[in-house]
C-alpha cells in the first residue's frame, strides 16, 4: 500500500511539473529540474522495478529533449545489472550517451558486459558486445579488441554480425588498432551468412577500403549472396564491388564492336594484334546478380545498381536502368531530387537511354522549384534534332509559370538548346525576342542575357535584334540585362552605326545613377565607339571617362584611367595604344553554354560527393579501368574444411530459411546451416573442377562430365534435406526451381536437345543462376580460351553480339575448304549504322593455320539487281590461331536471294554466298495494341495469310511461343490484353513494310497463326518458318 501511494504521489508531482513546464521559462525550469534529480536518484535507488523504470523513462525523455542528465550517472550505472529488461535497456541508452563524459564511473559497468559476453544466449552476448563497443572510453580498447576477436568466431551469425558492427566503433576510438582489426575483417569476410555480409563490408569500407586484395577470394561469394542480404547491406556491397570491378576487369566499351576498325590503319593493326574483348566471367556474374535488384522497393538499392551498371556495364546493356530510375521519380521529393541529379549526369553521356522517357521529366506546376530546375536540366540534356520541337513547345508553357526562378531557368535552358542544336537557333532567338516585350522585368532581363550569348554566334544576321534591344535600355532596369545590352551594342557597333552613338549619349546622361557593372560596360561602349567612330563620339567618350575618373568605385576609376591611356594617344602612351583596336575589337569566341553536370561522372554516381560536386570526407575515388586485366585466378577459391558454420547461400535461402524455428533454440538452426554450407562448398568444388578442366584445354563439350558428378552429389543433398523434414514446402520450392529451369532452358532453344532433361533439372536445383547455355554464341567462340569457363558465366560473354540469346550461326567457309581459314557468320540483329536499309551480318574469321593470314577483304560481289553490299574494312593481319569479328551490311531488297561474293586473302580467293532466312530481313517495330489493330485492319485480304497448326509438345506456354517466334524472325512483342494471343511486329529492313504476326492459342494444342504483310512472298515464307518453329 505504501508503494502504491508513493507512485501515486510521483505521478501527481510529475503532472504538476508538466504543468509548470508550460508556464515557466527555460532557465527557471533548469533550477527546478536540478531539485527534481534528487527524486530521480531516490527512485533509482529503490527496490521496486516500477519506480526504477519510471525514473529511467523520465531520464531518457530528458536526454531526448537535449537536457543535461549527466549528474545522475552514478545512480543510473548502479542499475546496469537490473533484472528488468526495459530498465536495463534504458540504462544502456544512458550509458552510451554519457560514458564519454564520465569515463571513470563508466568503468564500473564493464564487468557486467564482460559477463554478458559469456552468456549462453546469443542475443545477450550480442547486446553486451554492442553496448561495450559503443562506450567510447579509451581505457577499455584492449577489452573491446578481445571481445571483438572472440565474437568474430562465435557460433551465432548474429553475434558475428554484431562483431562486424563493433569494428568501425573501435577503429574510430583508436585508429592504431587498424592492423589487428583488418585481421578480424579478413576473417569475417570469409563468413558465408547473409546476415554478416553487409555489416562486414561496411566495416571494410570504414577501416581499410584500400585493401582490395581482401575481396578477391570473397568476390564470387558476395555476388551470389547479394540478393539475400538485407537492403542496407546490399547498398554497401554494391558500391564496394563497383570500385573493385574497376580495378580488376577491362573496360567493356573500349574496343567493343566494329568501331575500332574504322579508325586509322596503323591503329587498326595494333588493335588486331590485341585479343578481341571478352568479358571476364566474374564481371558478367556481378552484372547479372545485381540486375534483379533494380526491382527493389528501396530507392538506395536501385540507385546503387544503377550506378554499377553506369560505371561497369557495356553500353548496350546500360539501358535497363533507365526504367527503374524513372520509377524512383514517383517517390518522395527528396528521392526525386537525388535521382534527378544523377540522371542529369547520366544524360550527358548516355542520352539515348532516357529519350523514351522524355515525358516523365515534364514539369508539373505543383513540383517544388528545385525539382523543376533539375527536370529542366534533364530535358535540356535530352534535347536533340528530333525531339527539340516538342521540348520547345513544352518550355513555352513553362514561361507562363508564376514561379519566376523557374521561368528564368527555362529561358537559360532555351538558350542552351539553341546553342547545341543549330537547326532551332533562329526559332529560339525569335521566341526569346518576343519575350523581350514580356511584362515581367525578370523575364526580359534573363532573355536579354541569353540573347546576348546567342547573338555572339552570328551577329551579322541579327542587326535588327540588336536595334530592338537598344530600345530596351529606356525601360529595362535589371543591371545585368542593361550591361548585356551595352556590351552587345559596343561589340557590334559596326552593325548598328547610327544607333550606337545615341545609346552612348543616353547612357552618359544617366551614368552616375547606374550600377557598377553597367558603368563598366558604358566605359567599354565608349571606348569601342571612340575607336570606330571617333568623329561622333569623341566628346561623349571624354565626358564618360571624366565622370568615371571621379567615381566612388576604384575599379571604375582604374578602368577609366587604363582605357584613356590606351585609346587617346599621347606622347607618354607607349606602343600599346597602336594596338588598341586589336585589343578592344578582337573577335571574341562565342560562349559555350554547358550543363553544370558535365564531367560530374568522375565521381561515383549516387555518392554524396557526386551530389555536392566536391569530395566529401572518406570518399573513395572510382579508379580508372586497368590497361590490362590483373590475374583473374586470384578469385579462385580453395576448398577449406575449417569454415563450416556457414549460412544460407543461394537464392533458395529465402525459401529454406522457413524451417528455422525459434532463435533461442539455436542448435537446430546451426545444423541446418551446416548442411547448406556443405552444399555450398561442393558447389565451389565443382567450379574448381571446371576451371581446372579449362586449363587443360579440354574440348568445348566438356561441361557434361562435371555436371553429372554434380547431379549425383546434389541429389544426395536433396534427399538429406528432405529427410530433415521440409515436407510439402520443400516440394514447393523444388517445383519453383524446376519451372525456372524450364523457362530458362527454353530461352536457348538449341540447348534443350543437347542436354538430357534430368541433367538440367538437377543442375538447376543446385544453381540459382541461369544455366550454362550451350548456345551457338559459345561454340562460335569455343576456340577463344577465355570464354570456355565454368557454367556460371557462359552466357552472353561477347559484346559484339546482340544480347539476344537466339543468334544462330551459319558457316561461310569451312576450315578445310578454306585451307585453315574458317569463316562463320550470324545475323546480329543490330541496326547497321552506316545504312539503315542494310541487314547487319557479323562475320568471324578464325585462322587455324600456323602462319598469318593477310589482307582479308571482299571482291567482286555478284548481286541481284537492286541489292547492295557495304563491305567490312580490310583486315590487314590475322595472326595464327587468332580470330576476329567484323560486321558488314547487305541490302537484300527484302528477298531471300543469296548475296554472292569472293572472300580474298593475300594468297587465295574463295567464292562464298550469304543467304538470309526470311526472318532476318526485318527489324522490330514498336507498336501499341491499338496501332497494331489499326495496321492489321489495313492489311487484310491478299495481304493476310492464316494457317492452323498444332503446337509442339514443348511449345504450349506463351513464354515459349514468344521465344520461338522471336528467334525465328527479328520481331518485337506487341502488348496485348488477351492471354491467348501473342502479337509481334516488325518492318522489313529494305523497304520498311510492316510485318504483323499473331499467334492465337485455341483449346488444347491447337493454334492459329496469322501474318499480315504487304509483301506477300515474305509473308508466305515467314508463315512457313514460324510454323516449323512452333510445331517442333
Amino acid at each position: 500500500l505504501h508503494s502504491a501511494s508513493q507512485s501515486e504521489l510521483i505521478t501527481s508531482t510529475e503532472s504538476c511539473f508538466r504543468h509548470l513546464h508550460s508556464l515557466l521559462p527555460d532557465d527557471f525550469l533548469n533550477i527546478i529540474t536540478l531539485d527534481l534529480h534528487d527524486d530521480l536518484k531516490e527512485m533509482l535507488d529503490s527496490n521496486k522495478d516500477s519506480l526504477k523504470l519510471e525514473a529511467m523513462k523520465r531520464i531518457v525523455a530528458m536526454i531526448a529533449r537535449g537536457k543535461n542528465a549527466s549528474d545522475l550517472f552514478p545512480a543510473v550505472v548502479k542499475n546496469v545489472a537490473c533484472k528488468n529488461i526495459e530498465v536495463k535497456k534504458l540504462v544502456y541508452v544512458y550509458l552510451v550517451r554519457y560514458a564519454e563524459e564520465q569515463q571513470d564511473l563508466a568503468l564500473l559497468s564493464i564487468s557486467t558486459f564482460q559477463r554478458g559476453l559469456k552468456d549462453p544466449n546469443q542475443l545477450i552476448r550480442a547486446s553486451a558486445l554492442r553496448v561495450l563497443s559503443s562506450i567510447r572510453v579509451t581505457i577499455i580498447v584492449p577489452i573491446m579488441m578481445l571481445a571483438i576477436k572472440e565474437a568474430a568466431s562465435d557460433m551465432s551469425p548474429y553475434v558475428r554480425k554484431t562483431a562486424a558492427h563493433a569494428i568501425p566503433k573501435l577503429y574510430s576510438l583508436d585508429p592504431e588498432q587498424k592492423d589487428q582489426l583488418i585481421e578480424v575483417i579478413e576473417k569475417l569476410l570469409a563468413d558465408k551468412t547473409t546476415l554478416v555480409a553487409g555489416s562486414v563490408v561496411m566495416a571494410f569500407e570504414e577501416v581499410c577500403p584500400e585493401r582490395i586484395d581482401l575481396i578477391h577470394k570473397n568476390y564470387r561469394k558476395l555476388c551470389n549472396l547479394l540478393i539475400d542480404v538485407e537492403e542496407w547491406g546490399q547498398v554497401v556491397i554494391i558500391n564496394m564491388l563497383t570500385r573493385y570491378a574497376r580495378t580488376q576487369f577491362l573496360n567493356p566499351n573500349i574496343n567493343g564492336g566494329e568501331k575500332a576498325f574504322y579508325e586509322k590503319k596503323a591503329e587498326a593493326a595494333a588493335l588486331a594484334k590485341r585479343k578481341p574483348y571478352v568479358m571476364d566471367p566474374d564481371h558478367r556474374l556481378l552484372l547479372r546478380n545485381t540486375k534483379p535488384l533494380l526491382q527493389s522497393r528501396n530507392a538506395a538499392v536501385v540507385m546503387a545498381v544503377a550506378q554499377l551498371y553506369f560505371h561497369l556495364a557495356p553500353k548496350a546493356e546500360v539501358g535497363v536502368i533507365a526504367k527503374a530510375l524513372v520509377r524512383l521519380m514517383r517517390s518522395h521529393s527528396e528521392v526525386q531530387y537525388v535521382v534527378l541529379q544523377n540522371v542529369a549526369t547520366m544524360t550527358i553521356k548516355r542520352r539515348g537511354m532516357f529519350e523514351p522517357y522524355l515525358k516523365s521529366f515534364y514539369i508539373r506546376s505543383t513540383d517544388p522549384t528545385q525539382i523543376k530546375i533539375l527536370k529542366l536540366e534533364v530535358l535540356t540534356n535530352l534535347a536533340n534534332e528530333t525531339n527539340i520541337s516538342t521540348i520547345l513547345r513544352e518550355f513555352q508553357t513553362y514561361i507562363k509559370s508564376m514561379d519566376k526562378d523557374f521561368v528564368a531557368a527555362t529561358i537559360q535552358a532555351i538558350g542552351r538548346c539553341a546553342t547545341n542544336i543549330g537547326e532551332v537557333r533562329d526559332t529560339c532567338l525569335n521566341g526569346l525576342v518576343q519575350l523581350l516585350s514580356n511584362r515581367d522585368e525578370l523575364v526580359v532581363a534573363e532573355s536579354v542575357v541569353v540573347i546576348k550569348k546567342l547573338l555572339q554566334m552570328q551577329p551579322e544576321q541579327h542587326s535588327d535584334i540588336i536595334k530592338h534591344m537598344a530600345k530596351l535600355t529606356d525601360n529595362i532596369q535589371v543591371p545585368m540585362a542593361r550591361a548585356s545590352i551595352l556590351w552587345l551594342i559596343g561589340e557590334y557597333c559596326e552593325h548598328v552605326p547610327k544607333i550606337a552613338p545615341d545609346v552612348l549619349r543616353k547612357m552618359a546622361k544617366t551614368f552616375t545613377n547606374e550600377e557598377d557593372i553597367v558603368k563598366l560596360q558604358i566605359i567599354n561602349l565608349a571606348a569601342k565607339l571612340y575607336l570606330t567612330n571617333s568623329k561622333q563620339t569623341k566628346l561623349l567618350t571624354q565626358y564618360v571617362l571624366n565622370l568615371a575618373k571621379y567615381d566612388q568605385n576604384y575599379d571604375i576609376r582604374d578602368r577609366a584611367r587604363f582605357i584613356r591611356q590606351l585609346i587617346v594617344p599621347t606622347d607618354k602612351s607607349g606602343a600599346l595604344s597602336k594596338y588598341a583596336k586589336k585589343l578592344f575589337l578582337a573577335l571574341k569566341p562565342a560562349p559555350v553554354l554547358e550543363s553544370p553536370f558535365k564531367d560530374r561522372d568522375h565521381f561515383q554516381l549516387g555518392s554524396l560527393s557526386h551530389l555536392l560536386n566536391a569530395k566529401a570526407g572518406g570518399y573513395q575515388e572510382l579508379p580508372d579501368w586497368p590497361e590490362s586485366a590483373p590475374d583473374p585466378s586470384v578469385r579462385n577459391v580453395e576448398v577449406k574444411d575449417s569454415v563450416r558454420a556457414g549460412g544460407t547461400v543461394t537464392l533458395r535461402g529465402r525459401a529454406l530459411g522457413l524451417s528455422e524455428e525459434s532463435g533461442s533454440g539455436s542448435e537446430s538452426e546451426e545444423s541446418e546451416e551446416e548442411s547448406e554450407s556443405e552444399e555450398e562448398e561442393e558447389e565451389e568444388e565443382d567450379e574448381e573442377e571446371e576451371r581446372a578442366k579449362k586449363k587443360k584445354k579440354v574440348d568445348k563439350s566438356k561441361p557434361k562430365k562435371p555436371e553429372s558428378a554434380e547431379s549425383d552429389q546434389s541429389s544426395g543433398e536433396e534427399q538429406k534435406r528432405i529427410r530433415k523434414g521440409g515436407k510439402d514446402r520443400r516440394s514447393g520450392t523444388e517445383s519453383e526451381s524446376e519451372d525456372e529451369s524450364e523457362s530458362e532452358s527454353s530461352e536457348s532453344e538449341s540447348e534443350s536437345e543437347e542436354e538430357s532433361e534430368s541433367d538440367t533439372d538437377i543442375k538447376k536445383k543446385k544453381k540459382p543462376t541461369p544455366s550454362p547455355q550451350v548456345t551457338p554464341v559459345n561454340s562460335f567462340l569455343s576456340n577463344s580460351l577465355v570464354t570456355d569457363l565454368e557454367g556460371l558465366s557462359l552466357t552472353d560473354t561477347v559484346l559484339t553480339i546482340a544480347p539476344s540469346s537466339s543468334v544462330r550461326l551459319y558457316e561461310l567457309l569451312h576450315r578445310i575448304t578454306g585451307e585453315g581459314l574458317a569463316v562463320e557468320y550470324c545475323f546480329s540483329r543490330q541496326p547497321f549504322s552506316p545504312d539503315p536499309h542494310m541487314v547487319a551480318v557479323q562475320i568471324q574469321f578464325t585462322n587455324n593455320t600456323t602462319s598469318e593470314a593477310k589482307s582479308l577483304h571482299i571482291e567482286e560481289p555478284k548481286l541481284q539487281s537492286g541489292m547492295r553490299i557495304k563491305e567490312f574494312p580490310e583486315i590487314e593481319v590475322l595472326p595464327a590461331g587468332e580470330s576476329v569479328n567484323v560486321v558488314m551490311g547487305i541490302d537484300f531488297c527484302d528477298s531471300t536471294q543469296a548475296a554472292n561474293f569472293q572472300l580474298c586473302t593475300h594468297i587465295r580467293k574463295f567464292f562464298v554466298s550469304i543467304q538470309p532466312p526470311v526472318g532476318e530481313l526485318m527489324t522490330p517495330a514498336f507498336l501499341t495494341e491499338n496501332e497494331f489493330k489499326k495496321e492489321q485492319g489495313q492489311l487484310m485480304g491478299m495481304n493476310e495469310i492464316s494457317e492452323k497448326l498444332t503446337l509442339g509438345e514443348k511449345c504450349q506456354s506463351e513464354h515459349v511461343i514468344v521465344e520461338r517466334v522471336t528467334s525465328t524472325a527479328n520481331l518485337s512483342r506487341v502488348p496485348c490484353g488477351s492471354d491467348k494471343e501473342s502479337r509481334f511486329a516488325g518492318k522489313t529492313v529494305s523497304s520498311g513494310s510492316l510485318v504483323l504476326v499473331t499467334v492465337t492459342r485455341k483449346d488444347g494444342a491447337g493454334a492459329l497463326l496469322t501474318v499480315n504483310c504487304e509483301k506477300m512472298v515474305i509473308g508466305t515464307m515467314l508463315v512457313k518458318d514460324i510454323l516449323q518453329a512452333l510445331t517442333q
Partner: protein
Amino acid sequence: MIHSLFLINNAGDIFLEKHWKSVISRSVCDYFFEAQDKAGEPDNVSPVIRTPHHYLINIYREKIFFVSVIQTEVPPLFVIEFLHRVAEMFQDYFGECSEVAIKDNVVIVYELLEEMLDNGFPLATESNILKELIKPPTILRSMVNTITGSSNVGETLPTGQLSTIPWRRAGVKYTNNEAYFDVVEEIDAILDKSGTTVFAEIQGVIDACVKLSGMPDLTLSFMNPRLLDDVSFHPCVRFKRWESERVLSFIPPDGNFRLMSYHVNAQNLVAIPVYVRQNINFFETGSSGRVDITVGPKQTMGKTVENVIVTIHMPKVVLSANLTATQGTYTYDPVTKILVWDIGKLNQQKLPNLKGSLSLQSGAPKPEENPSLNIDLKIQQLAISGLKVNRLDMYVEKYKPFKGVKYVTKAGKFQVLTVPSHV
C-alpha cells in the same frame, strides 16, 4: 554513417535529438535554419546541406523535418530512404507521425531509434522485428503498465533477426486466418483545355493485410500480368518466380505491408474517368473574371465516380470569388488563393456546374498565367488499368484462410490545363 538525428517542427523547435556516436551540438541545426529561411517553402529546402564540418541530410514529412547529421561519404539516398523508414515506423507504431505523438511516446521513440541504427548503420528496420522488441503502445497496455510497472519491452528476444526471412516473426497464431489485398491505382494525367490527353499513366500498389498463422507460403497470380510494365517488390517476393512465371510468390510479413508497386505500360491507352469543361477568363476592364466549370463522367466502366474535388490555384490578384455550385460546396481562401470545389458523387443525369465571377485587385494588370485545375476522385471496385488478381494459393500451412481482393482507383497528379495544348 548517420551520426545524429534531430526532429524539428515547423516553428523551428528541435523537439528530439538522438546521437549514435559522440554527441554533436544542436547548434549544427543553425545551418539548416539558414537554408530553410532561404528556401521559403519547406518543399524547397535542399535535402543535402553542406556545413563546414558536417553534411545535413533531411526530409520533410508530416510537418516535421528529420535532419540527420553525416560526417563522411555515404550515398544520400541511403540516408533519405532510412529517414523515411523511420517516419513510416512512427506511423505504424503510433497511428500518426506527428510531433504530439512523438512527444507523448518519447521513450518508445528512443528505444526504436536505438534498435534501428547501430553506430549509424541500419540494424533492424523491419516492423515485424521491431514489434517483437518493442511493443507498440495501446491504451490498455499503457494503463496496465502504469499500474503494474510492467514494460513495453518484449520479454522474449526477437527471432526474426536471426532467420533469413527477417520480415516475419515465428510462431504467429490467429483464430481467424485472413489475407486481404487492396489493389490501389492512381491516374497521373495532364489534360489540355479541349480534354485531349497530354500525358497519362497509371501507378498502382498492392497493399496487403495478412493475418495468417504459421509460415504460409503464398502465390498470387494475375489474369493479365503483362499489363505491368515496371514493378518493385517488398523484399519477401521472389524475383526469379516473377521473371519466369509472372506470379508473386512470397512468405508474407505479419500484418500490413506493401507487397508491390507497379506502373502500367505506357503504351496502353489510359482511360480517363472524367471530363472537365471549363472557362476561366480575366478581363482587363472592371478588374473581374469569370469561372464556368462542368465536370462529367467519361470512361468509368459503369462505376460511380465519388469524392470528386476540384482545386484551383488562382493568380495572386484574385481577391474573392462569387460563385454558385449546382452540386457540392465551394470555398475560396483569399490568403492562399486556393479555390476548392467539393462535388462528391458524380451524377450522370445532372452534371455538376460551378459558375460565377471573380473580383480582382483593382488597378492590377490582368494576370498572365492561366491557372490549372487539379482533380481528385475515387472509384470503388475498379482498377482502371484492368488489372485483375486471378487467384491466391497457399502452401505449407493446412488451414483454409479467408481471402479478399479490393480494387480502388484514385486520381494521382491529375491536372487539367486551361490553355490549349500543343500536342
